[in-house]
């Protein structure tokens, strides 16, 4: 009996020791102390998924060796991925790869995981949003505005589902410009684009990179870009800021962790992603997928501040819709 007792105590002691070392493992030097999981808040094969899978080997290298698995959790616009990140241990081993949809769906009340539960490590991509039309219908933004003013309530603008970055970009444009337009949500960017090409709707608000080949073929044209400066490739296309509308949000891709992750670990993660971002491999990937129109990088603190501001703006816009 006493022997089993002592064994029990010994096990207990070891267990406590284990907990104690576990706590001091917040020391960023030991990181990563176990395999890392990338949760992708989107389906396999999409832009966010490609992003996570391309970054994975580079990130392994930047950490000086790590084992990483990628899991797709597309359900509920990625809310399940955010939820799992928020309920996992706050030790930086569960990373959530998400797009702007995280904050737009939060503002729409579809995502229960708030910015107090998950926090950004860094933003690495920001695809420029723009208003696209068939150039045969509207040669420029002026003619579009003129048509919209003469036909209030008749203009139809397509984009992906409700509370998507496309939808929020539309709402913020309508709010700023005061034009009377309607939004029609589609299942995918492809469907919205097809309807603009076929002349079934008037325009679409979406990000630039997926539509480049239509622009080259002259079938679609951006007539307004959501940016503070004109883009080098489109010097004739006016910006929102020129029109005194402070709308520069793009469709971002960023990495999130549990909000209580210790600061040294968060810093270590941010540094590792910065190394990846600055690498030649990553930059050539960004160029290949046309995400080099503007600086994608934004550090943890700056991006958190921006998301919080956006959350308030988007909540207001979606509530008034």
């Amino acid at each position, binding site marked *: 009996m006493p022997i089993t007792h002592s064994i029990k105590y010994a096990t207990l002691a070891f267990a406590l020791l284990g907990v104690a070392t576990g706590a001091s493992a917040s020391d960023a030097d030991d990181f990563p102390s176990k395999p890392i999981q990338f949760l992708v808040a989107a389906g*396999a*094969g999409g832009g966010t*998924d490609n992003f996570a899978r391309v970054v994975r080997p580079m990130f392994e290298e930047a950490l000086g060796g790590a084992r990483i698995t990628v899991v797709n*959790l*597309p359900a509920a616009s990625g809310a399940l991925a955010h939820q799992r990140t928020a309920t996992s241990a706050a030790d930086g081993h569960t990373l959530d790869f998400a797009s702007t949809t995280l904050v737009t769906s939060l503002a729409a009340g579809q995502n229960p995981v708030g910015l107090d539960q998950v926090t950004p490590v860094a933003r690495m991509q920001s695809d420029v949003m723009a208003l696209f039309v068939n150039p045969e219908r509207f040669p420029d933004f002026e003619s579009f505005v003129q048509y919209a003013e003469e036909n209030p309530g008749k203009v139809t603008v397509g984009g992906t*589902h409700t509370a998507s970055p496309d939808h929020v970009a539309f709402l913020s444009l309508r709010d700023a410009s005061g034009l009377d337009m*309607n939004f029609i*949500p589609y299942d995918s960017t*492809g469907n919205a684009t*097809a309807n603009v090409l076929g002349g079934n709707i008037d325009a679409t608000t979406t990000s630039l990179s997926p539509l480049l080949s239509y622009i080259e073929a002259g079938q679609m044209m951006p007539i307004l870009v959501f940016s503070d400066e004109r883009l080098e490739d489109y010097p004739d296309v006016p910006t929102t800021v020129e029109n005194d509308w402070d709308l520069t949000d793009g469709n971002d891709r960023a990495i999130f962790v549990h909000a209580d992750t210790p600061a040294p670990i968060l810093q270590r993660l941010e540094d590792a992603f910065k190394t990846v971002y600055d690498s030649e491999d990553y930059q050539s990937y960004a160029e290949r997928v046309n995400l080099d129109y503007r600086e994608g990088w934004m550090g943890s603190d700056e991006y958190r501040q921006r998301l919080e501001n956006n959350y308030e703006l988007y909540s207001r816009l979606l509530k008034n819709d």
Partner: protein
Amino acid sequence: MLEHFLGGLAVVMQPLNLLLLTSAVFIGFIGGALPGISGVILVVILLPVTYGMEPTTAFMVLTAIYGATVFSGLITAILYRAPGTPEAVMTAFDGYPMTQRGEAGKALGIGVLSSAIGGIVGTIALIIFTPMLAKMALKFSSPEYFALAVLGLTVVASLGGRLIYGLIGAALGLLIATVGIDPLTGTSRYTFGNLNLAEGVGLIPVIVGLFAVSEVMKRTLDHGSHQPLTKVKVKIFDLPILRQIGMTLSRSSIIGVVIGILPGIGASTAAMVSYSETVRWSKHPEKFGKGAPEGIAAPESANNAAAMGALVPLFALGIPGSGTTAVILGAFIMHGLQPGPMFMLTSSDLIYAVFAGLFIVNFMILLFSKPFIMLFTKLLNVPYSALGPIIIMCCIVGTYSVRNSLFDVWLMLGFGVAGYLLEKINFPLVSIILGLVLGPIAESELRRALSMSQGDVSIFLTRPISATLLGIALLLLAVTLITPLIKRARRNATA
């Protein structure tokens, strides 16, 4: 065009490419035959492997896998009523009864031949019509899709069995389809605050549950429903059969191509529509669901034709026509290529090599499917007490892997029990699937069409294509409802 195609064929015939293509076909066979592993998942898994390849080779491999999975879903659908892919659901309706009658070999032969013919028709259409058809598909907008879905739903009336069950089933399917976040307003419907339901009820858990799991339950619980064990001999070219299904094959291949080309509607819908049309035009609609050869020929030729058709908008416009083609689009972008209007001009070598590869793949299906099927038919002689649990395990793993969701597994098992009970009262399960697949299309396109017209219903009648489709639906509905009445009146008159 022929010159381009021959150039493409030369690329495919290079030994290394031919070897890769053959292995891609086998990988596709295996993936397609296992329930839950669909073309989408397989392409995603193999995507990183193709990074190291030349783009031309990479896309030949990816599209070959895609073509082969669409085909091989029929094997388990016919043998065990466990469709390997969603595209093969309709094949189980008549394929499995044939297996139960001891005609598995005949059923599989019809499936293989129909798949290959559908695939070849689809590939030819792909090669000839890509530039032309892509423009036409753009005429299809929300009113037209809504009309198409309505046309599909009217089939419930001619499915046979008790009409009231058919209507209840379709309504049930439509109801299940409404679960989840409403894509147009973002409101949660019937989710009960459960995040797992926010995305809606997946097609895979419902299909696998209703068909595969319920069948295993039936075989286990109801004694005396054992099928006769016979030697399965697959005969692909069988002239009398070919004569019988020739008409069905040509009609279904064309339906498949047309539906495949429409962006956003995939091979599963094509299989469903062509099956319903075959029932509608048949002189013996009562034979369907009980092992009619046409019931295999229709969905199998249509889904393979549609799989090829779905590549038309992808290559010509950069718009994916189905789930798998959406993933292939992602793969193109990863390789630094952007499918779109300019793609045919800038990358014609690559495109024609892919076309030629697909052409070859369909012949490979004819050639290699027999030995592959033999592997599966050997399993028929394994006692069901061992096979049943294996099927259930495959169902669980497959369903889980689609969304990494254990919730979906419970949902699937629930639908399994429901399917088992519903079959006891001869409830037509197909009507539920019909509602589930066509419901979201009908609902969201109706609402989109109305926001396009600012609420004016006349949009459905002023656009020629939607007006025609709705007219046909109405006419067919009237015919199916009135014909039995006339027959009864005649019988009364003569009596």
